[in-house]
């Protein structure tokens, strides 16, 4: 059995919306899956040796962005940061509604990121 392909999280996000329907709980879940598809695909591009340099105070999400900046891909770092923020809003900020346009923007951003990451 091969390694799990995180891109399938992005496909799952699309399936959730098309099969379960237009509900806020689906939007919030789909945004989370779309973010993790992009984050994990970017993480797979981080050279194994680079993890040795990860500061103890930083988290993996920040470190992946940091490596992308260091390797001349600041646009990937910036877009990941934005999608990360959207994902955190979807997961933690309940009083602020997550709407269909929010989801559509997040999915478009995730798709763009996945295309950029493929070229790294």
């Amino acid at each position, binding site marked *: 059995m091969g390694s799990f392909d995180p891109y399938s999280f992005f496909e799952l996000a699309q399936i959730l919306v098309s099969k379960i329907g237009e509900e806020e709980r689906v939007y919030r879940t789909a945004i989370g899956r779309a973010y993790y598809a992009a984050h994990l695909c970017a993480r797979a591009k981080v050279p194994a040796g680079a993890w040795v340099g990860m500061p103890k*105070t*930083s*988290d993996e*999400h*920040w470190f992946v*962005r*940091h490596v992308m*900046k*260091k390797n001349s891909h*600041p*646009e990937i*770092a*910036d*877009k990941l*940061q*934005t999608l990360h*923020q959207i994902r*955190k809003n979807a997961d*933690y900020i309940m009083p602020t509604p997550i709407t269909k346009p929010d989801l559509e*923007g997040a999915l*478009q*951003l995730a798709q*763009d990121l996945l295309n*950029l990451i493929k070229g790294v």
Partner: protein
Amino acid sequence: MTTLDQTQSYIDYYVPDSSVLSFDFPVQGPFSTLLVWSWKEPALTSMDRLAVSVTPLSSGVQNFIERNALWPALYVGEMIRDRMTKNHTTTGLQFAVDTDAESPEREDLVLVFSILGKEYSEILNIWNEVSREIHSKLPSTVSEKVSVRLVKA
């Protein structure tokens, strides 16, 4: 900090080393704050030692910039905003601080450009160029604490 008359069309600023520079960009929209810092950065030319913001900054953002010495981001952001405004690409720039609920110690200064009259797919392409340009002009210690975001106006 100086409060400007909103009808003023150009900014004159007294530079501490006794010269006066006139910045040739129009003052538009509602704002009340002009922040000026002198700073030294070997990677930039001597003319770039002045950081000027005509964008309103909250006290939290000002403190964050000062605490982390992020003035170059302010300067570079304003420079790109000015050019994008001339090209009718952006309606403005905001500075914000992103906090991370999962890593409370992790905060970033975010440069948010509002893009006018473009499809999101176009915005994503412009974003690539703006990100690359801004980060290439920033010292790495500043770049680490800065991110660029483009949103639909």
